[in-house]
């Protein structure tokens, strides 16, 4: 028997809005602001135009006294502020269940402003723990950062998740 994720997620997480579901697969959307908590970045190349390394970002979402923690381990290799990115999300729910996601073909694009960037990536579900232990799925990620790397990234995850057989 398949379990349905949508009702559980919507019941627990206000910003995690169900867009639709069937008996075993649901679409959910999560909006949040990521803040950098640690960076390990290096600059190389002529004019230090190449930036590479890690950026560790976190976010929290409060709902009915509970907190959902969002962690992003991001890796970047930018030339003049744009280029490929990679990363993995860890979403930790109030009951300690974890949902793990990975970027696929993430790309950062420069904006017309002097600094900042937009991000776009497909998403793959790595797996999870607790009620997400058999989770599968995919989705998309979009983000926008107004400041230089290290600044807040306004983010949106749209996921299609299947919890698998019970």
């Amino acid at each position: 028997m398949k379990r349905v994720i949508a009702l559980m997620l919507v019941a627990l997480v206000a910003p995690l809005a169900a867009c639709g579901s069937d008996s075993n697969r649901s679409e959910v959307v999560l909006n949040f602001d990521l803040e950098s908590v640690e960076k390990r970045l290096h600059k190389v190349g002529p004019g230090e135009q190449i930036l590479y390394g890690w950026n560790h970002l976190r976010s929290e979402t409060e709902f009915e006294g509970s907190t959902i923690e969002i962690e992003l381990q991001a890796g970047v290799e930018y030339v003049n502020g744009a280029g490929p990115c990679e990363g993995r999300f860890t979403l930790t729910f109030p009951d300690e269940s974890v949902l793990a996601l990975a970027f696929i073909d993430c790309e950062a694009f420069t904006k017309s402003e002097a600094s900042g960037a937009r991000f776009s990536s497909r998403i793959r579900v790595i797996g999870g723990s607790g009620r997400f232990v058999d989770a599968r799925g995919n989705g998309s990620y979009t983000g926008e950062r107004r400041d230089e790397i290290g600044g807040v990234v306004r983010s949106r995850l749209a996921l299609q998740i299947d919890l698998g057989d019970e």
Partner: protein
Amino acid sequence: MLAACDPAADRVTTLSVTTSLSSKYKDLHNVGADNRIVYGWNDLEGTAQVGDETVQVQLLGDVEYTDGGGPFGGFVTLTFPDGAVLALRVVDARAMAKTDTSDARFTGLVRVIGGTGRFVEASGRGVLEGRRNDELGGVVEMTYTVRLEESQ
């Protein structure tokens, strides 16, 4: 050793860096049935003797292993005594290991990202080979062999 491999092209060299890398920081997560999937970061550091120079080696590694092995990536930063930096990107790399991640063998490719100082115009590609006897987080013996092209 930093050895010229083509006498006619004095800017092409083969750089071989063998190092013992120790984990300085890990941020790993286990998920999936029986925690068979491990993913996250491992920051490793070591030194290597390259000719008569002692080079600092940092590997910002990321892994996504299932049953002990699988793909990994990362950034390698080689810092030479004069402050010059050569940066490598790990691509298409895999670990084969026991299900507890021990007895691991690493193979993969590296690409030169760029550098500073005498490596500021560097480009090139290479390979990596390594091993780890202990579980993830243990000491990694690694060799990076890079065909280094430095434009004039």
